[in-house]
Each structure stands twice: as structure tokens, then as C-alpha cells.
């Protein structure tokens, strides 16, 4: 059983996940952000690996990634930072990065490092299903890692069923056909889509992401899924208020 499955055993409703960018706003903020998020009741954390060309992310995450890279962050430093909190951190971490980062680092070396840091779940938005089937499924299995697939309002039912069969952590339900960024509201169209997915009775847990930004959107999303991920809105908050006031952002959402 992986860390996310264990989490779902204890709690499978209103799960809050936060995405943050490693090395942002300051190089050594990675561990501080994780411990603050844990302390204030976040259920699992998406650890963003800053990338120079993050095609699936919106401007907020791109800017934070660029800043983090300027701060001097790199994969080796991130793994070092994650190792320092491995013993104390009890909140499941999900690593989110782009395929080229793993490719260049060395696929096996990358997977081993991830395992060493106590992480077993990956989100690689530019890893397509066919490549997963042809190669990465085997690689991840070898290291006991699991990959999270995304589905969108345009993903066909047959493909969703296939993704459901591959899923060992959760399905990342993209709230709209847009890149990440705080939109501030959930439209009727999005609700139709959530209803459609819910009605499919998938075996996998569903987590909604993209466009979730505050208490209202979080709770609406949780009506249709097991939980939701907030990314850009959190990044904007730490960019503005630093890492000492994370509770002021998190507490109102889960209260």
C-alpha cells in the first residue's frame, strides 16, 4: 500500500492538498513550507520541481519556478532538503515535475532518490499514457512508485476507464480545459463534468485541481471528489506574505 492509499484509509473526504514550488520564495524554504502545511492540517502535499519550461502550468507557477531556479535550486538540492525532513514529516508527499528532468537526471537514479526521500507518488504532466505503457510503468513498478494521471473535460470515457485501471493513488481531475491558475469560481459546466465523472463509479479516488483557490471553491470541489488541490493561489500567497503566515491561508479553507 502506498502513502496515498494509507491516507485514504484514514480519511477520504474533504482532503486538502497544496502544491508548492521548491526553493521558493527563498532557496531554503522547501522544508519550512512542508512543515507549516503539515502543522496546519493539509492532508497531502504536492512538491513542485521547478522547471524552465513548464508547459502545463500557468504564469504564477512558471514565475515561481523561474525565481526558484534563479535562487539556485536544483534536483540534488531538493532531494537533500527532502531527506532532512524525512524522519519528521508524516504527511504524504507527491512529487510533481516534468519528464525531461527525470530523463536528464537518469531515470533509475531519479527513481531511487525519490524512494530514498520516502516518496512513492509522482505527477508528471507531460508523460503520456502510451509512454507509460511502453516503458515507465515497468520502471515505476521496479521502484514501487506510482504515477498520477490527469483527466480533463475532453477525456473520453474509454480513456478514463483505462486511467482508472492504472491508478494506484488518485486520479487528478483537471477542473477545466485550462492551465493552472486561480479562477475564483466553479462554473455550471464544470459541475456537469464533475457529475459525469462521479456517475462513472470509478474505483479510484478523485482529486480535483486547477482553478481551486479558496474555501468556497474547495468545498464545492469536495462535493464531487474526495478532495482538491490548491496551487497558484497558495503560491501567490507565499509570494506576498512569505512562509511565516501559511496558517492564515490554510486555516480558513479547512475550517
Amino acid at each position, binding site marked *: 500500500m502506498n502513502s496515498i492509499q494509507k491516507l485514504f484509509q484514514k480519511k477520504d473526504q474533504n482532503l486538502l492538498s497544496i502544491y508548492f514550488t521548491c526553493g521558493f520564495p527563498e532557496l531554503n524554504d522547501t522544508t519550512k513550507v512542508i512543515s507549516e502545511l503539515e502543522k496546519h492540517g493539509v492532508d497531502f502535499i504536492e512538491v513542485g520541481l521547478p522547471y524552465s519550461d513548464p508547459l502545463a502550468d500557468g504564469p504564477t507557477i512558471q514565475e515561481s519556478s*523561474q525565481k526558484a531556479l534563479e535562487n539556485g535550486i536544483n534536483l540534488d538540492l531538493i532531494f537533500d532538503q527532502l531527506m532532512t525532513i524525512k524522519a519528521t514529516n508524516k504527511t504524504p508527499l507527491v512529487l510533481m515535475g516534468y519528464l*525531461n528532468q527525470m530523463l*536528464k537526471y537518469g531515470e533509475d537514479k531519479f527513481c531511487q532518490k525519490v524512494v530514498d526521500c520516502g516518496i512513492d507518488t509522482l505527477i508528471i504532466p*507531460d*508523460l503520456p499514457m502510451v509512454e507509460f505503457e511502453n516503458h515507465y510503468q515497468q520502471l515505476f513498478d521496479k521502484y514501487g512508485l506510482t504515477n498520477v494521471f490527469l483527466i480533463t473535460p*475532453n*477525456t473520453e470515457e474509454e480513456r478514463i476507464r483505462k486511467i482508472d485501471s492504472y491508478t494506484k493513488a488518485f486520479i487528478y481531475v483537471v477542473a477545466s480545459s485550462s*492551465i493552472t491558475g486561480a479562477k475564483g469560481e466553479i462554473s455550471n459546466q464544470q459541475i456537469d463534468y464533475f457529475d459525469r465523472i462521479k456517475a462513472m463509479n470509478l474505483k479510484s479516488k478523485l482529486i480535483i485541481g486547477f482553478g481551486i483557490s479558496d474555501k468556497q471553491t474547495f468545498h464545492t470541489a469536495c462535493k464531487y471528489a474526495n478532495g482538491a488541490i490548491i496551487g497558484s493561489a497558495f503560491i501567490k500567497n507565499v509570494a506576498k506574505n512569505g512562509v511565516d503566515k501559511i496558517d492564515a491561508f490554510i486555516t480558513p479553507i479547512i475550517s
Partner: protein
Amino acid sequence: MKSKFQPDENGYFGQYGGAFIPELLYPNVKELEDNYIQIIESEEFQTEYKSLLKDYVGRPTPLYLAKRLSEKYGAHIYLKREDLNHTGAHKVNNTVGQILIAQKLGKTKIIAETGAGQHGVATATVCALMGLECTVFMGEKDIVRQAPNVARMKMLGAKVVPATSGSKTLKDATNEAIRYWIQHPDTFYLIGSVVGPHPHPDMVARLQAVISEEMKWQLKEKTGKENPDTIIACVGGGSNAAGAFYHYMDDEEVELIAVEAAGLGVNSGESAATSQLGEVGIIHGSKTILMQDEYGQIEEPYSISAGLDYPGVGPLHAFLYESGRAKFMNATDKEALAAAYELTKIEGIIPALETAHALAVLPKMDLKKDQVVVINLSGRGDKDLDIYSKYLEE
């Protein structure tokens, strides 16, 4: 027999290619993949495409024996005059084809990226022709250095959106175009080179293949043989080279030379010579050779030429390089500028800065007296006059 230079069912040329796209783009890319070959090979498409290429673009473009250039370098040098196409470069071969494909797929909104602005102009042109809405993404730095093309795009009714991230050049314009495409799945991404996720590289290569198709019969008329000894073309993403090489790739006796932009020098830290500086990586949805650091972060290339200022290269070219089928050479900013002046002075043709890189390798080659060389003169230099004038002053 299928050529080994055609992509396999997953869009791979050897180990390069594929479609590394977020799930959000899957339906769009799949729709194109399922339909592009059938559309391109249909009689209806071929009739419309060929008629537009002839009457609107002005094809066939001449194959011109450059006598004085030939005398100077001691070989038979032919110039494939893509600069004489409507809009001034080879780019329009592709945009005419893709706009017809977009129409067959029922798409009404077109987006494109552009580096030097030639693809942007060629896209804005076909959108005006077909009455379709056009948005072009262009790096902020390129908007400044290729101002005449920005003005042309605007006059043609296109919206030009500056890409302000990263190096503010072609790579970033492509990122912004892909992002917009993700947010607006109803748009058709009219990509400008043999890059991007499968099937884009193959589709663009097929649409540019008209260049080498014409070269074959033109050479036959002029020399008695369809095959030249050598074909030279510049490579940024690689669309003009793909077109000029296409019908010769399986003919090993034809030497193929791809010329990359070396900027201030291959090892100066200011270069765009991807094959020399890059390693296997993923950019814009394709596995290829890529300029990147030890952590896979994409590096910012440099070239005086906005059209060659790209940290990757199309997957077909990565395969041509790795397999040794094509020889990769490079030319610096200075060598390209000198070559542009040389061609202008002895042949009365002002080439685009991109094209000048292809011309710039002539002095580095060991040419034989009877050697038949075709240089793909991919574009004209009107857009580069500012840069050319500055060089003259120095």
C-alpha cells in the same frame, strides 16, 4: 518499402519524436493524428493545395544556377529560390497546407508561434485569405529585431501577442502558443516547423516536401540527373531543410548538409548549434536533441538570426544527425553576415539572415569542379535590413 526516415506508429524517428503532451492536449493531437495523412493524400486536398501553391504562392520556385557564386567556389551551385514565394520564404508552403487541413477539421481559430516572423506572416496571410481569426505568439526580443514582419502581420489582421518569459525568443513564443492551445482546445495550432508533438513534425515535413519534389525535375532538366551531389540548408527547427532533403533522404549518394547557427562561436556560451551542444531531451512535446543543463533545464540559445535561435531541433533532424545521414555544420553570426553580403554583391540576391548561414559554409567545404550543389535559399532578407545596415556601418 517504408522509408526509415518516416515516423513509426508512435511518431518516432529512431529514438526521437513521440508526443510528450499533457493530457489536456491529447484530444487535439489525436484528432490531427487520426486525420492528417488521409487529408493530405486525398485528391480534394491535393487539388486545392497545388492550385494555391501555383497561383497564390507562385510555385514552382526557380532553381537558379548561380554562375558567379559557382565560379568563386569552383562547383555548380544552384539556388532553390524559396525567397521568391509569396511572403518571401518557404514558410508559406506549410501554412497553405495546414490552413486547408484546419478547414477540413472544421477549425476557425488559428494560432501560431514565430521566430523571425516569416511563419507568422505566412500564417496571417493564409488566415486573411480564408477569413479565419489569427493569433501569433512572438518573443518580445524578436518583435524588436524583426519589426517589419510584425507590421505585416498586423496589417494582415493578425493579433501579435508578445512572449515575455525566458529568453523572449522562439522557444518562449512556442511555449505561449502551446499554453494558449491548452486553454483554448477549439483552436488549431498551425505550427511553423518540423517540431512539436507527433504528428506535427511529419505533417510539416510532408507539406515542405514540395521543395525537393520540384528540385528533382528541375535538376533533371538542367543537369540530366535528378540527384545533386550535395544539398545545403540552414536548420533552426528545420522545416526548410526537411523540405529540401525530403525526397532525397533514402538516396545515400546525395550528401545532405544541415547548417546550424553558431552565434558567437559554438563554444562561446552564446550559440544555437543544437547538435553540437545538446543532448537527448524533451522540448515542446518531442524527444530530440536539446540544449539543456545537467538538471534538464532548457538553456537559452543565442543567434543573430531569430529564425535559428532555438534550443532544440526537429526529431527528424536529430535522427538524420545521429544516424550520420546528414552532416551538420554551423556558421557564426559574422560568417553569416559576410555570406549575405557576398551573395548580394555577386548575384544580386539579398538572402534572409537564416539562409545566410547555409551560404556561409561554402568557404569551409572542399568542393570539386563538377560537384552539383543545391542551396535552399529559404527566404529573402528584407526583414533583416536593419541588422545588415548596422553590420555595414561596423
